[in-house]
């Protein structure tokens, strides 16, 4: 397992109090955390930065979370997105997964579990990256 500070996380949630509290706790766990309050701002940031993992609220005013997810996966296919939401809705959750979300977690998520999920998402991303590298390396050998 990697050490935590290699993992960068973007936290997107319009509930300021919740978002800031969670960001503080994730930072204390050694993660590198950036915050945005809305989908549009998050996409702007993603144009400049490539975090390993995005924690995304599904229901936010303005740009719909599922639409934000679709655009993130378009812009940054390797970035893993974990949907974190107060809405227990089967159809939304399945649409989210179909659009490439790593997981759909219902608030409240115990911090321990969330940190482990972030690690798992990061691991998937690194394996994916190594695989692509290896294929490229093998590809130039013959």
């Amino acid at each position: 397992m990697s050490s935590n500070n290699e993992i960068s996380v973007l936290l997107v949630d319009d509930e300021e109090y919740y978002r800031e509290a969670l960001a503080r706790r994730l930072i204390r766990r050694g993660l590198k955390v950036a915050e945005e309050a809305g989908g549009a701002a998050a996409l702007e940031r993603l144009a400049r930065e490539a975090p390993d993992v995005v924690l995304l609220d599904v229901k936010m005013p303005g740009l719909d979370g599922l639409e934000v997810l679709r655009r993130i996966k378009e812009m940054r296919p390797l970035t893993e997105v974990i949907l974190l939401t107060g809405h227990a809705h089967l159809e939304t959750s399945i649409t989210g997964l179909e659009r490439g979300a790593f997981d759909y977690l219902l608030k409240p998520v115990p911090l321990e579990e969330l940190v482990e999920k972030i690690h798992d998402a990061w691991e998937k991303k690194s394996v994916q990256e190594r695989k692509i590298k290896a294929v490229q390396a093998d590809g130039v050998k013959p």
Partner: protein
Amino acid sequence: MAALLEKLKRLLGREEEPVQVEAGLAEEFKARYLSFRQLLAANNKALELMSELEAAAGGGRVFGMSFLRSRTTALGVSVFQMVDLLNRLAPDKYPALAPRLKQIQSELETILAPAEAAQGDELILLLSEIDQNRAEQAGAKMANLGEMRNHLGLKVPPGFVITAAAWRLLLAGGGLEHEIRRRQQTADLENAEELFTLSSQLRQLIVDAPMPPELGQALQRAYAALAAEAGGEVRVSLRSSALGEDSAEASFAGQYSTQLNVHPEFLEQTYKEVAASFYSPQAMHYRLVRGLRDDQLAMAVGCLAMVGGVSGGVAYSVSPLDPADRQVHLTAAWGLPRVVVDGEAAGDHFVVSRQEPHRILARVIEDKQSELVCHAGDGVCRLELTGPRATQPCLSEAQALEVAEAALKLEDYYGGPQDVEWAYDGQGRLVLLQCRPLRPAEAKAATPSPQLPATGPEPLTHGGVTASPGAGAGPMHWVRKDTDALTFPPGAVLALPRPAPRWAALVGKAAAVLSARGGAAGHLATVCREYGVPALFGLGPELEALAQDQEVTVDAGSRAVYPGRVEELLQRRQARPAFMSGSPVHQLLSRSLERISPLTLLDPDSSEFQPQRASTLHDVTRFCHEKSVKEMFSFGKEHHFPQRSSKQLFYKVPMQWWMLNLDDGFVREIRGKYVKLEDIACLPMLAVWEGMVAIPWEGPPAAGGRGLASVLFEATANPALTTGVKTRYAQRNYFMVARHFMNLQSRFGFHFCAVEALAGERRRENYLSFSFKGGAADASRRLGRVRFIGEIMEEQGFRVESTEDNLNARLERHEQEATLEALKAVGYLLMHTRQLDIIMNNPRSVAHYQDKIRRDLALIRSGQAEGQKALKPA
């Protein structure tokens, strides 16, 4: 990205030389192993959620719609992930699976969909145009009032109903409904602090919501018509009339708000306040424990011309306390009946005969201290009673008989005992304000309290009124304000200055309820009876002398409070009623479970084991798990990748056990054909192995096999491990290993077993699953063995399920060490329960083997078995 994938596909083609693709293959295998691990994690989560839902259906816990929605959503997510991950391991190999899952999910969605809004979109209905058939729009209370007015010719106040459609319109504004559901999901309503916080937030949201203009206009028009009818300005009472309230199953006594003598200026504001009481703490808690669906309920509000009562109260058409007492019981007070309804004052008590001619059988006239009257401006106020009225009966004999007759008329009409609220107006006319079914006392609740021995303790206080019979004990907990409610410890005795309905949310957690004031007719008394919680009210100022946290025993039946725990009184405590069973939420769970939990894909070798045959989420998880294991095995072979092909285990001699290293299961890379035991780093596999070899197998249980077995025993440490030398390919035993993970697929003779375990540092993710199927003997003996093994596994702390001759045993969330210990037991059972089906019809042999197995398992746990010692390096 797509180009890369194309390249990868080409590279993985068989015509390529293995040497050239090795780095790519190694990474590809790593990615597959990661997918496999994620699939297993999703499988575990799905199985845990299913068992949580099944446990909830089995009773014993309280759950609401948000529990049901969040668990089924999480389950849907896990199963979807499994299908997706299987598709990564075997692209496009099972095209029927995803559509099948989609079908099951959509059936579940249909079951769990929010209830359809009731018919009728009128925002306002006049009392003169409704009856019981409009309960879906007007709520039970107002529909009843309409029924009394329009079909029974009884006098009720003129007025109208602001309907359920109006409530929905109010909530739809500004997405309030979604916001409410979202906040509810994250709250634990069994926790008083969260309940009170959430309740206050939700009520605030509703009160702050803008009044929809069409509703505001309709309300003003209806009020103007009511005022015109009354000949000028009229004050009104706004009474909650929730859907589902006042049904025989659920009384909702006093859970919602009623506002009296409202000035027209405050009409809209007060409407929202009454509507908001849908989320009062007591109402939310009540719906939760009764399994009622918020989304099927709504809050209609009655707007009735205010009756400026001279006197008023409550009538019960039978005794609510004693099922043998069929007389009519009246409780009355001066002024508005609210003091009686809220349980604030005991009031005058009249017992009127059921038989005609009706006559007064008993009368208790209280010394009444105050009355509640309409304030000239807005609302109500309390006046001290001085002079002769304080001690005069507040009903004349004729009035008492008139009220009793009305109650009996209603009982006759509705076909069951009734609880009626009434008032006498300034002109001396009887006006009925409310009527609902009365839940009669349970027969056993009324059995007299056992007599205390003469040497028993002296009561701390006695007297008052039995509000709900029975006995209970616990520490005193005084609740005078909201903050006291937050710290109420379950099992305490709830002590109150007066029995206000707002404390109803605490009743279910209380051992007993005591109140200085109040009588048996109030709402809180009704709630206590409904919950079967003993309650003694009207104890007077003496109750105040009992200190916080003092341990007391309440005997409500004989109206006494004793110090400490008096076991003689507590022995007859009755079980609390199980509300959840059969409730709407419970029914919904049962229907959902039909699409979730039955396992019909049982046999992976059968031709029926097809994705299109999956009919439940459990089937889908079973299918994905089975196929993912197969896919992991076949990779190395299909891709000519020797490091990721299986190796034959070499332990003194080559064994019929094949090992596939998934990641870090070997201490080093093995290039050859064999892997030695000391090359294995997989902790779970080594634990299973230890259990297998710990105690030599005695051979098949029936006579005849023993000689052969002992010969084999001399050949190797444990003959069982080398049996089946000539087995077919399909009968080999396979281990897939990583350092903390193993999966074993094994065929011993005619039966099949699988063991899978993760024993790592994340305790939350650790698990051990053992499944087992088949056998050579007839069905009854095969089933006998399933039961036999199941019992032993349960003793070892496993959760066991069996379907036909399938056995599944699971252990979850244990520490690494405990998981490994359990794996040793599993290893032992794998070896020693083979062929036990043969003896299953012989009880004496069964007992013998049970005994032996228990002794052996204890020995293995101590680490002292012969085979275990031999494993330790010398």
